[in-house]
């Protein structure tokens, strides 16, 4: 079962909304599928993202994958720890492996995302 306090995209990103702040990362399933992650490219603080826009890239030894923003907003922070320790995405994808924080302004966007049970069903299909 995936964490129940998050919302998900079908592209395997998660978002945690706390007040007007949204924290974004990729799911354990995505991290496992990619394998050992060796590089994460994230946008600069102050840039602005639309919902579902590409916000960066994650690379494992074998594959490169685009990252899609579960919600839009102004970027207030990126996880600098991932520059030196990209493997945090594998070991703690919902915690220390978080990627991005954005100022979250449009609650309607959450309606476009998958609830935990729907995301669980998606990954169960493989």
């Amino acid at each position, binding site marked *: 079962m995936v964490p129940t306090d998050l919302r998900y995209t079908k592209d395997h990103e998660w978002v945690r909304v706390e007040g007007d702040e949204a924290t974004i990362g990729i799911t354990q399933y995505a991290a496992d599928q990619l394998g*050992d992650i060796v590089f994460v490219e994230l946008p600069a603080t102050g840039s602005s993202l639309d919902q579902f826009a590409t916000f960066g890239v994650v*690379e*494992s*030894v074998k594959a*490169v994958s685009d990252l899609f923003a579960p919600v839009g907003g102004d970027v207030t922070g990126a996880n600098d720890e991932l520059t030196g320790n990209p493997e945090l995405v594998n070991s703690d994808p919902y915690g220390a492996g978080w990627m991005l924080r954005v100022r979250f302004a449009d609650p309607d966007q959450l309606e476009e995302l998958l609830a935990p049970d729907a995301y669980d069903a998606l990954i169960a299909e493989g």
Partner: protein
Amino acid sequence: MNVDATIQQTPLADRHAQLGARLIEFGGWLMPVQYRGILEEHRAVRERAGLFDLSHMGELFVEGPEAGEALAYALVSDPPALKEGRAQYSMIAASDGGILDDLIVYRLGEARFLVVANASNALVVSDALAERLAGFKAVLDDRSLATALIAIQGPRSVDVLAPLTNVDLRALRYYGIAEGHVAGIDALLARTGYTGEDGFEVFVDWDRATELWDVLMPAVEASGGLPVGLGARDTLRLEAGMPLYGNELDTSTNPFEAGLGRVVKLTKTDDFVGRAAFERAAAAAPTRTLVGLVVERRGIARHGYPVFAGERRTGVVTSGTHSPTMGSPIAMAYVAPADAEPGTIVEVEIRDQRVPARVVPLPFYKRQV
């Protein structure tokens, strides 16, 4: 996973499933790409030992009083110059000099050789050899689907294998091969590999493969080793500067620009397939050279990414990865000879961004002997 009926499986497919391997299609075969993780498996081979299922490779036996001469005609190297129990790296070329595959040739006896081909090219090589052997007193026995291959690689390989075999491993030098048994199973035991480490490749009958694996796997694990998939096999060979057919070598490349001109024996007295083309290529100034690149840490320079020298496009990346040993991205690339000098700074285009890379000598990694 949907498994295409045309995709073949090795005799060890059940073992990979039990070990929780992630499987991919490679060269027409369903193969483990990783078990625990590429980085962990890579380190196991560099520091301890790793066990590989390479049963997808093609094993082509060539036998007969003119087996050596036939192979000297069919391949670019000089197999008759091999002593019994020795091996050489070789290639098979088309008449225009295009490389059909790179190979290892083992001399098993006075009139008996084993040619090991890449899985994806095994049929092409088998067909070409059958055709080229005609007219010689030599026969081809394609035992690709009757022969399993298990490799054990890494500094602890000798310690793991020695108690399990009657072959004197200390007497078996690098690029040597001996007949004997391993775990009571008839085997050909070669001191070859594709990792840059010491290690062995063990050829056994297809239907004895699980039995052998079931003895080797616990022995490898007891030495701190791991089963290793194709993912780490690629990072290991790349650090060791070894070419991969389809990346560094193909029908449009020639061995001289790949830095492998020494493999082509133009000194052979008799004709061989591709000779005229290779004589021209050896005499001509090369138009491109295979180099190593250490890339700034802003992503992996992957196969097909363009390489620039200033505004001029100088070449293309053939293979790239994250080097677990060096902790940085590395790549091999063909570039113009003028840009091939070690120390030269070029740029690789990674997703519309130019990322600096330094030309370095190959290999990236050399084990301490």
